[in-house]
C-alpha cells in the first residue's frame, strides 16, 4: 500500500505523483534536488579555490622556519588532513552512530552518514600517516617510529578499516547498521587517545600547535593564516566528499534492494510459467 499521491517503482523507489521525483523510502530523495546540486557545486568550487590558495601560500608566500627551514611548509598539509580525519570524519561518525542507536532518532540516514564519514575519514587518515612519515624522515631521520602518537593513529586507521570491512558482510540493513554503530563507537574511543597521546606519554611527535591545553597557538602571522586556510580548504574537501559518498550510499542501498526484488520477481514468474506448463 502506498500513501495517496505516491507510487512505487520496480526498484522499490518511491515516486511522488505531484512532482514525479523519485525518493528513498527512508525519507531522503534518491536523486538530489537542484538546490542540493547547487550547494554541492559551490562547496566543490570553494574547496578547489581554497586548496589552490593554500598550496600557493604554503609553498611560495610564507617564510621558511628558523629551525625547520622549508620543511615547515608541511604544516599546511599534515595537521589539516589529521584534523579532518580525527575530528570531523571520525567525530561525525561517532555522533551519527550514537544517534542511530538512540531509539528516538533511529534512522538509516544516520547509518549512511556514519558510513560515508568513515570511508572519507580513512582516506584522510592514510594521508595523515603518509604526510607525517614524509615529514618524519628529514626531521627524525626515520620514516616510522613506534611512538604513541603514530601508533595510535595507525591503530585508528586499522579500526575504521575493520568498520568498512564489517559493512561488506551481507546482512539486513538494520542489523548491519546496528553492529556498525557499535564498532564505530568502539573505534572512536581511540580519537581522544590520539589527541592526548603527546601529553600522556613522552613522544617524538611534537605537541599540538593550535589545539594545545592553553588554547594559545604557537604559530603567528602569515603562517597562522595559511594554516587556518588549510584547515578550511581540507574541511571543504571533506564536506564535498561526504555529500557525494552519502549519495552513493543511498543509491547502493536502493539499487541493491531493487535488484534483489527484481531477481525474486523473475524467479516467481519462472515458477508460474512452469506450473502453467505442467497444468497444460
Amino acid at each position: 500500500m502506498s500513501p495517496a499521491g505516491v507510487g512505487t517503482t520496480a526498484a522499490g523507489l518511491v515516486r511522488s505523483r505531484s512532482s514525479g521525483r523519485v525518493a528513498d523510502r527512508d525519507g531522503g530523495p534518491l536523486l538530489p534536488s537542484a538546490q542540493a546540486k547547487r550547494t554541492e557545486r559551490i562547496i566543490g568550487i570553494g574547496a578547489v579555490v581554497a586548496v589552490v590558495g593554500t598550496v600557493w601560500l604554503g609553498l611560495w608566500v610564507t617564510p621558511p622556519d628558523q629551525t625547520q627551514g622549508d620543511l615547515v611548509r608541511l604544516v599546511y598539509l599534515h595537521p589539516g588532513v589529521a584534523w579532518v580525519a580525527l575530528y570531523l570524519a571520525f567525530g561525525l561518525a561517532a555522533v551519527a552512530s550514537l544517534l542511530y542507536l538512540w531509539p528516538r532518532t533511529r534512522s538509516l540516514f544516520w547509518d549512511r552518514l556514519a558510513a560515508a564519514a568513515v570511508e572519507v575519514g580513512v582516506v584522510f587518515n592514510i594521508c595523515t600517516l603518509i604526510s607525517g612519515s614524509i615529514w618524519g624522515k628529514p626531521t627524525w631521520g626515520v620514516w616510522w617510529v613506534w611512538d604513541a602518537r603514530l601508533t595510535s593513529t595507525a591503530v585508528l586507521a586499522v579500526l575504521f578499516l575493520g568498520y568498512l570491512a564489517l559493512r561488506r558482510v551481507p546482512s539486513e540493513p538494520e542489523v548491519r547498521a546496528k553492529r556498525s554503530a557499535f564498532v564505530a563507537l568502539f573505534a572512536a574511543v581511540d580519537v581522544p587517545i590520539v589527541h592526548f597521546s603527546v601529553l600522556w606519554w613522552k613522544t617524538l611527535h611534537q605537541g599540538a600547535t593550535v589545539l594545545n591545553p592553553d588554547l594559545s597557538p604557537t604559530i603567528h602571522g602569515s603562517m597562522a593564516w595559511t594554516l587556518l586556510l588549510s584547515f578550511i580548504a581540507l574541511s571543504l574537501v571533506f564536506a564535498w566528499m561526504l555529500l557525494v559518498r552519502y549519495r552513493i550510499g543511498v543509491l547502493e542501498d536502493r539499487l541493491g534492494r531493487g535488484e534483489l526484488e527484481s531477481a525474486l520477481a523473475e524467479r516467481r514468474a519462472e515458477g508460474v510459467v512452469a506450473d502453467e506448463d505442467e497444468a497444460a
Partner: protein
Amino acid sequence: MRYVVVGYAVVLGILFFYAVQLAWRRRRLTRAALRIEASSPEPGRSPGDAGPAADR
C-alpha cells in the same frame, strides 16, 4: 624542499584520485537508478497500459 614537494604531491594526488573515483561511482549508480526508473510503470498505471502510443 624535495620532501615538501613529494608530501604535497602524494597527499593531494590521493585526495584527487579518491574524489574522481567518488564522482565516477555516483555517476554510474545514478545512471542505473534512472534506467530502472525509466523501465518501471508510472504509479497508478497498470503494467498492461502502454500509454497513448498503444491507441494508434
